[in-house]
Structures are given as C-alpha cells and as structure tokens.
C-alpha cells in the first residue's frame, strides 16, 4: 500500500473516530445547497418528530433501566433512598442533573456511585474498576453543578440520596452511550449470549449474572503466546 494512500486512510479513520461512534448522517440537500464542507458539519441523527423524552416520578427506592427524565420529590423526610440504574451491556450510563433542590446544610445529600454497591460489596470490585474508591462516589454537595453530567464506567450506576424537607428533590436525565468494549457488565437477564473482548492489556474484566444460571463458555482465548484457546 502506497504511503500516501495509507495516510489518507488514516485521516479518514481519524475523522470517523472523531464522531465517537454516534450515528450521524449527511443530509444531502439540493444541488444549490451543496456544501463542500458538509462532512464537517454533519448533524446528529435526528430523532423521530414528536418523540418525547420518557418521564416519570422517581421513588425513594427505584430501579431504572431506560432512558428518560426522572424526578424525585419528597412528600415526607426521606432519609435512606437509592436508585439503581442498569443499561444494556454495551452501554454506558450518563446521569445529568437537570434540577437539584436539596439542602446540603441540613444533611441532605445526593451521591452518584459508579457501579452498584450492595451490602458493602461493590460491583465492579476495587480490583476491576479503573477508578479508586474515593473517586467512584460523586457528591453533589461537594461538586455542585461543576460536574453536571456523570458517566459511568460500565452499564450500571446508582445514586444515594436523602431529603429532609418535603417538597425538595431533584430531576435527573438518564441517557445511554455506546460502549465499544464493555469490560465489567451486569446482565439484565438470565438468558442470552455475550462476548467479552478485553481490548486493553493488563485489565480485569467481569460479567455478572444475578440469577441462578448455567454458564457455558463456548469460545475462550487467553493469550496468543501460550496457545490458551478453547473452541
């Protein structure tokens, strides 16, 4: 392959990577509107007209597996609340603060945890997660709106919150982004087939199923040098 052609291919690949995997399309208008720089002004794929964001109220204890806008409003002091978020295995979760009305001074808090923590047990574990434990908790009372959008490192996340004053609360928008190489996954279902590719070296990955299941490993490749393969 000629070096010039290789350079052109690399340039095209870089341009495609810049789109971050999100689906875009080039809207070709009529010839009079032809724009030679249309590639650089590509728009995001349009949503269907009239498609509305899913909205509902969030409960003190909740599990959310779809995108949308969720509002929690305390009708009475709610001191121990948590909401679990889970997406598809090949997705990240992005939590965006739309509105937060809590009184941090009186003991309210709203914390996002990167993963799930249940009875003190964390998923992913500290050995598998890229961030240290202290960075996995993002406290709104500390960071405020400086970190308005928080993206998880895997397909699960959760929030802990406490609201003393009735009427206070918050609104979050939950969105998902594609994860090309999921590493730590919690499966939503007890059935299915999943392929986990560890794209990075020296990284621990895991796939968890919280149901009693039978697991069959059909393909396994662990290292090329040692020839550890299972077909």
């Amino acid at each position, binding site marked *: 392959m000629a070096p010039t052609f290789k350079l052109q291919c690399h340039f095209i690949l870089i341009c495609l990577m810049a789109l971050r995997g999100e689906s875009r399309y080039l809207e070709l208008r009529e010839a009079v509107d032809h724009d030679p720089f249309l590639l650089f002004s590509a728009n995001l794929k349009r949503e269907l007209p009239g498609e509305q964001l899913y909205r509902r109220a969030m409960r003190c*204890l909740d599990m959310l597996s779809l995108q949308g806008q969720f509002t929690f409003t305390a009708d009475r002091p709610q001191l121990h609340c948590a909401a679990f978020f889970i997406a598809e295995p090949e997705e990240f979760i992005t939590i965006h603060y739309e509105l937060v009305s809590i009184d941090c001074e009186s003991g309210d808090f709203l914390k996002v945890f990167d993963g799930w923590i249940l009875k003190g047990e964390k998923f992913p574990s500290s050995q598998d997660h890229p961030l240290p434990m202290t960075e996995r908790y993002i406290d709104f009372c500390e960071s405020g709106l400086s970190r308005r959008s928080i993206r998880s490192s895997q397909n699960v996340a959760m929030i802990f919150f406490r609201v003393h004053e009735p009427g206070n609360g918050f609104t979050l928008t939950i969105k998902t982004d594609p994860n090309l190489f999921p590493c730590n996954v919690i499966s939503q279902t007890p059935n299915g087939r999943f392929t986990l590719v560890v794209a990075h070296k020296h990284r621990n990955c895991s796939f968890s199923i919280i149901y009693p299941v039978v697991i069959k490993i059909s393909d396994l490749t662990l290292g090329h040098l040692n020839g550890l393969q299972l077909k």
Partner: protein
Amino acid sequence: MRLPLLVSAGVLLVALLPCPPCRALLSRGPVPGARPASQHPQRLDFFQPSPQPQQPQARPVLLRMGEEYFLRLGSLNKSPAAPLAAASSPPAGSSGSRLSPDEVAANFFRALLQQLPLPRRPLDSPARPVERGAENALGGRQEAPERERRAEEPPISLDLTFHLLREVLEMARAEQLAQQAHSNRKLMEIIGK
C-alpha cells in the same frame, strides 16, 4: 480410624446445626441499634399479608453503612396497616385486571420503603462530618482534613437481598418493555400515515 470418625462427626454437626436465615433483611422489635440484626433476622414476604396485622411493630430493612447496622427508631407517619394492606396486593407478574403494573410496582416499593429504618443516633455521627463537609463545599472550598475524613468514611450501601434486587430488576424490565411497545406503536402510527 479416629480421624475420619472425627471428620464425619464434625460434618454432621455442621449440617444439623440450625442455620440462621438470610441475614441483613429484617429484625423484629424497636431495639435502638444496640446489636446487629443479623443475629436473628426474619423474612418478610411483601406479597402476603402479615399474620399479625394488629401489632404496630414494623420490621425494618437495614441500611448498612460500612459494617454497622442501624435499626429503626420510633414509628413512621403512616400506620403499618396501610403498607401491609398494600403489600397484600398481587405480585407484579400477575397483576392482571385489578391493578396496573405501575400501581403494583408502587405498592411494592411503598411496602418495601415502610420497612426502611429511620436511625437517629447511629447516623448522627457520620452525618455531622457530612454536614460540615457540605458547609465547606457550599463555601467553595473543602479543607484537606475534611476530605481525608470523608475518604475514610465507610461506603454508603444498601442492604438489599439478591431476591429483592431481582424483583425490582424485573419490574424495571417490564417498564422498559412497555415503553418500547409504546414507542413501536407510535412509530407504526407514523409509518401508517
């Protein structure tokens, strides 16, 4: 000869000893956080009415902070009869004609939340550094000792059994499928036009 006999006896003893049921779910009685509830936990079936609805004692679900368990103190504003009546509604999977899935899910979570504790004393001590930290954060800066103290605090977590976690996950998936069906129906309506 003796060693296999001793091993067999030990195995029999372990097998025949009464095992405590699943811990970290419930504890009866308004004991103010003196002992961990894992010693004598009891199971609560949220989808069946309580056998003794007259007793106002609620059975708390424990919120675990680090290694400490906090039991519920005092009583909630709502009477326990209301959540127990709500908990007696049919399960989410067989809500059928009487209740919508949303109502069943709301009843389930309401019943679950009624069991959540309202600890006072045990949470006061970790709450105070949280409040102080919040004040500093609102002031714009947080001192290094406060940050270190917060980092040393045990992680906040929720004591939820895998059984309940699966239940809420199934509800979330049912909601997701319902929303997907709604979107598909709208899409078909648009295409049909």
